[in-house]
């Protein structure tokens, strides 16, 4: 049987000086500084043994001005779960850093790369943090809620003033043929 969320929180706080917040329906939100220590504890504690990190993803909460990284943890040894671990980071690209949990669960490796690629979360301590789905030259993070697709690589075949204005505002390259049609 999986201990209740309160019991898990208390057992974490007995060992690690962390800020652990309960979020309804099965999640624990920990502060960035102690996330790695908490993850190590959850994996090794004999009552929990959460050895299988199933799903890693990020969520953009634009209204609360934060990006939340969500880890779904299961135990293969004890066949229970999930315990959901959440870590929040500010949205600003330079400050959007959380510790990588790849040293604890190897399965986070590609999923954290994906979260970095699509959301711009930098995972400190990740062995190989590169883009994974988008190409290397891509500059932005397309899953962020405020992302605007540039107009220069998917311009409309019958351009109108609004399209061209948006392309120009974003510094995109307006295809020559589009300008021809405008004339």
């Amino acid at each position, binding site marked *: 049987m999986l201990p209740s969320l309160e019991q898990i929180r208390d057992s974490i706080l007995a060992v690690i000086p962390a800020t652990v917040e309960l979020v309804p*329906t099965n999640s624990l939100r920990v502060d960035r500084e102690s996330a790695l220590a908490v993850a190590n504890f959850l994996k090794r504690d004999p009552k929990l043994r959460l050895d299988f990190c199933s799903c890693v993803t990020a969520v953009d909460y634009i209204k609360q001005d934060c990006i939340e990284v969500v880890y779904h943890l299961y135990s293969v040894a004890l066949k229970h779960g999930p315990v959901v671990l959440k870590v929040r980071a500010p949205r600003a690209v330079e400050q959007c850093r959380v510790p990588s949990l790849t040293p604890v669960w190897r*399965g986070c490796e590609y999923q954290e790369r994906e979260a970095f690629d699509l959301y711009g979360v930098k995972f400190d301590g990740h062995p190989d943090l590169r883009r994974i789905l988008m*190409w290397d030259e891509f500059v932005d993070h397309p899953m962020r809620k405020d992302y605007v697709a540039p107009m220069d690589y998917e311009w409309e075949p019958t351009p109108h003033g609004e399209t061209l204005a948006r392309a120009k505002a974003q510094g995109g390259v307006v295809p020559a043929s589009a300008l021809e049609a405008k004339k």
Partner: protein
Amino acid sequence: MSATGIIETQTLEVSLGPQHPSTHGVFRMDVVLDGEYVVKLKPVMGYLHRNHEQIAEKLNWLGSMPYTDRLDYFCSMTNNWAYALAVEKMTGLKVPERAEYIRVIMAELTRLLNHSCAIGFLISDAGAWFTPVLYAIRERELILDFFEAVSGARMMCNYMRFGGVRVDLDDATLAMARNLVERWPKFLDEFEALLLGNEVFAARAQGVGILPRELAVNGSISGPVARASGVEYDIRKVDKYGVYERFDFRVPVGEKGDTFDRFMIRILEMRESVKILQQALRDIPAGPFIASETKLRNFKVPAGDGYGRIEAPKGELGFYLVSDGGAKPCRYHVRPPSFINLTVLEDMCLGQKVADAVIILGSIDIVLGEVDR
């Protein structure tokens, strides 16, 4: 030749793919070779990336159901189910019993067609071009005929709905399914005898690409790949979603975790799937096939987040959804088994020959629609 008289050698970097039949789609492996041996391997993906998750966040809840078909385009039925399950968890919709049985029948037929084709393609990768895979595709076509009779489409079925399924099975389609299930063990015997007794294939596959149990668990590997390494973990048994706890079936587990075990585990899983199908087709109750309280239009999900997962043929397929109470998902994330199973590809290939890297990749069984999303 150097001054000491020893011939200097250097490593060779080869780009395997993206346009290469053994990569099962547009997938690339950057391989560094020392002679014929792999010393480094980095998978490169994203060639099929269309930001499926963002498309889904711009559609209403039901609107992305047909898009889930395109994730793992071999197994649209299980993709539908995983998404429906996640939404049902968040809304608390109860699925009628008949719909649960129909879902089990569809999912297990999907497992049969996926595993038989995966084995066929693996044998193709090993060098037995086309004949074995065409045996598998011949049988798969019969299942696709059944899917077409039920849902109107061979592969892009778009069949499940929140709280049930779209169309009921009538007597004619049920008889079709019974025929299929009766036919399958004969095909399986033939297929297994053809391949299991094949010394060349055994020599190619045994002891190649060993995945240790600890690494499989730590690397979040799921599905047949993990079970071949001795991880006794099947979400059908652990989560008991749907009506799976009513069926009597076993979870086959491998010993060594090599390519041969991953091939064998799929044969054994198909035999268990046939057992589940026989029981489901025998016990299927009468009744409604979709919950009466479900709404196709103006469907809303209460605010909060939820994670639903099922045992898809390739591994754990999960959907993590966040709702703000509106008509569209606030966050829609797919946990794709093929993508995550690639995490340990390099570990399995190091020290193996480059030709073995191809069959190791084949034994993981990836679909690029799901890897790249």
